[in-house]
């Protein structure tokens, strides 16, 4: 652990930056009013929920997936039984103790209001929390941060060089990434601030980028895995865990994981991805162990995939997907929410899982029951016009 240099952290707080520029050292922002932690893991590419949590008790499952189904519990490479009907993919086996301890809940059939099949639009709806994609969009998580009960100063943290839409918007957030360029001289930054003065886009981004806050890991682990994006994910979860564990730090982090668009050769690709996903979640479990009873990890994806496999041992885009909640706060050890089943009649357009629960309901539950945001605020500011969508009851321990 070292004091974090400016280049590692990009504070997005204009007020803080100007104080730093004035030479006040070791500044960090106010203690957040909440001590709850939230990590959102976005699985980009539309994760195949039926591969993550195979419905091995449903005969339609094996009929629809003759080549790529996960075998039944007890068979070679078989699923790990959860409740006699659903199993967990064996590469996620590290998570099974969490499920058994009641710290993990799975929502088997969930979707946003988005009806088409574009990843980019699907992610936009998932992250902005609206199907109306006109104009300048902000992320629902960023809007949630604008409530004063979550404290002052930068409260959200994006792991990666770019801030995902989920965290973009009016509230201050920070991003973290690794690189190895020398720091800029204070004098040079002051000169640039003066030269940018006529260009608000550049001057505002420079101000935000200059704040220097708290400590973060310098020597990141090397996982030995060759995929660049997986390394980014694993480093991201490690950094998120270490940063969120500190007293004066953002409380909310977003980590991206890429590669779930498995149109072909799904089995080996998902093996690698699930292995890394389990490692990343267990890294968060470890780094946040002192705060585990205040932590929720939310795993989401823009939509799901077809129930039947396609001709190239993969699956195509579909409606209903799967989501996971983990953490000491979670009322887990169960599969939460309805399950529409896999019979052809029960499927959307005869090929895709229906959505038994909307993401909006899940997100509202997390904001109200976990972060403790007032319901009125959530329904006025974060998800306007969502009063008809009730939060899900009982997702969290009481």
């Amino acid at each position, binding site marked *: 652990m070292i004091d974090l240099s400016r280049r590692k952290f990009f504070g997005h707080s204009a007020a803080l930056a100007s104080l730093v520029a004035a030479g006040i050292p070791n500044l960090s922002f106010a203690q957040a009013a909440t001590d709850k932690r939230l990590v959102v893991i976005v699985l980009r590419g539309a994760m195949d929920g039926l591969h993550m949590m195979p419905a091995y008790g449903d005969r339609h499952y094996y009929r629809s997936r003759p080549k790529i189904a996960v075998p039944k519990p007890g068979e070679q490479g078989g699923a790990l039984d959860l409740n006699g009907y659903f199993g967990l993919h064996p590469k996620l086996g590290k998570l099974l103790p969490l499920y058994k301890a009641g710290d993990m809940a799975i929502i088997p059939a969930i979707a946003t209001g988005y009806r088409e099949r574009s990843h980019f639009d699907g992610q936009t709806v998932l992250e902005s929390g609206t199907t109306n994609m006109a104009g300048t969009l902000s992320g629902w998580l960023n809007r949630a941060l604008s409530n004063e009960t979550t404290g002052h100063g930068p409260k959200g943290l994006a792991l990666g060089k*770019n801030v995902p839409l989920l965290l973009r918007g009016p509230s201050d957030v920070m991003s973290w990434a690794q690189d190895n360029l020398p720091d800029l001289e204070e004098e*040079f930054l002051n000169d*640039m601030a003066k030269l940018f003065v006529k260009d608000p886009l550049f001057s505002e*981004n420079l101000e935000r*980028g200059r704040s220097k806050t708290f400590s973060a890991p310098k020597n990141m682990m090397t996982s030995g895995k060759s995929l660049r994006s997986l390394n980014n994910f694993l480093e991201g979860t490690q950094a998120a865990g270490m940063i969120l564990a500190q007293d004066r730090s953002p409380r909310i982090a977003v980590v991206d994981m890429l590669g779930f668009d498995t149109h072909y050769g799904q089995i080996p690709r998902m093996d690698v991805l699930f292995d890394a996903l389990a490692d990343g979640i267990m890294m968060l479990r470890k780094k946040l162990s002192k705060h585990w009873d205040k932590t929720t990890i939310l795993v989401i994806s823009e939509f799901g995939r077809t129930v039947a496999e*396609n*001709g*190239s041992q993969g699956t195509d885009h579909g409606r209903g997907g799967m989501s996971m909640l983990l953490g000491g706060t979670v009322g887990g050890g169960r599969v939460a929410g309805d399950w529409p089943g896999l019979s052809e009649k029960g499927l959307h357009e005869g090929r895709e899982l229906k959505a038994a629960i909307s993401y909006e309901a899940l997100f509202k539950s997390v904001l109200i029951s976990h972060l403790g945001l007032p319901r009125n605020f959530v329904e006025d500011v974060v998800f306007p016009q969502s009063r008809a969508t009730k939060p899900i009851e009982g997702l969290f321990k009481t």
Partner: protein
Amino acid sequence: MADNKMTFTALNRFGFGPKFGEARQVSKDPQAWLRSKIKPQKTLPVRLQKYDSYAVSMSKIYHSVVSENPEDKRLTRRKLHQIFHEETADRTRVMIETDNAFYERLVTFWANHFTVSRSRPWIAPGLAAYEREAIRPHVFGKFEDMLLAAIGHPSMLFYLDNIKSIGPNSALGLRGRRSYNENLAREILELHTLGVNGGYGLEDVKELALGLTGWADGAFMFRQQDYTDDIMPVFKFIPRIHEPGTRTVMGETFPQNGVEQGRAILRHLAHHPATSEFIAQKLVRHFVADDPPAAAVKTIAKAFRDTKGDLAKISAALIDLKAAWAQPLSKVKTPHELVVSLYRVAGWKNIPQRHILEPLKLLEQEPFFAPSPAGWGDEAGDWLTSGALIRRLEWIRAICARIPLTRSPRDILAQAGLAQFNPALSRKVENAPSADYALALIFCSAEFQRR
């Protein structure tokens, strides 16, 4: 002088910024000067002529896979990746040195429109060849020809899974359980032609996918024991996996005609009114503003329809757009544009490969490595977060200490033409504590980072 500002726009908005001395060569009529750059490029830039075709480089990979020596595969791939990186650097050098930056900018625009990405590592060694073969020849040609060349290129067929797409009622489909794959068809409709709001439905995706069954890479379907020298990874239509029957896409029916069926559908899409709107919007976003003005989009869409997708005439129409000459320039340079434009005006001869590739990786725009089939974003918000801005400044500050200083920062500032927009920059440069510091001030300025 207004002329001077138009020269600035011609060089920056339509090109990659001036080379040292280039501003003098722009005539009194910058629009006419730009129009003179619109001419078919019959030959490749010299630097790119020595590289293998897609078929030749990829066939080396296929050969190594069937080789009896397991080391062959590893060594071949390593060698090919090395060559790929050399070509990637040479491609950027071409853009740094070219006298026709308008053409090279359009190459990057269209290659991005028809993105094929290294996110599928197998095809990586062939991606630079894809751009040479499918994009470069058509930049001032017909949109329809570029569409057919890009979609029909084996790297695209591989990237978007069409090589594994098998008509369920084709000869092979009837024997097995394999079926068609919609990935390519969906991206053609959403990203390459009609656009996401182009009015197509799930059925159109499926019908286009079926129409394209059989479009394959001639080397992919082989059995290993059958592999011979005359099996090549070039476009090949395979009748035994092509779905029989008539197809209907966007209300138009296309009778069974083998490979010509898919071509006919693509041609129909190339000339669909939604395509002209979608392409016009992207072009205007690129050459005018992140939020493309409706009137300009309308003008370009009309030019597209009137000329049946003649990209030379559409490029000329872009030059004629009044909105494209509005100042100050509002577009933020992408990392690639930033790196190219910096080296152009700095006039560094023989830039080492790592100083070309490393910043592109650092600033997250490695050529041929777009994150998705949608390509790189073309709006300021896609590139200018606070973290990304700091990283730009850090790289520029560091590289300015390495560029061999053959000209004074004062001269470079004058060549770049920035002081007319920000007089404070001249003063800062004059008073800078060192030459590399002065250069960094120039290249970090907002005026330099916009186009």
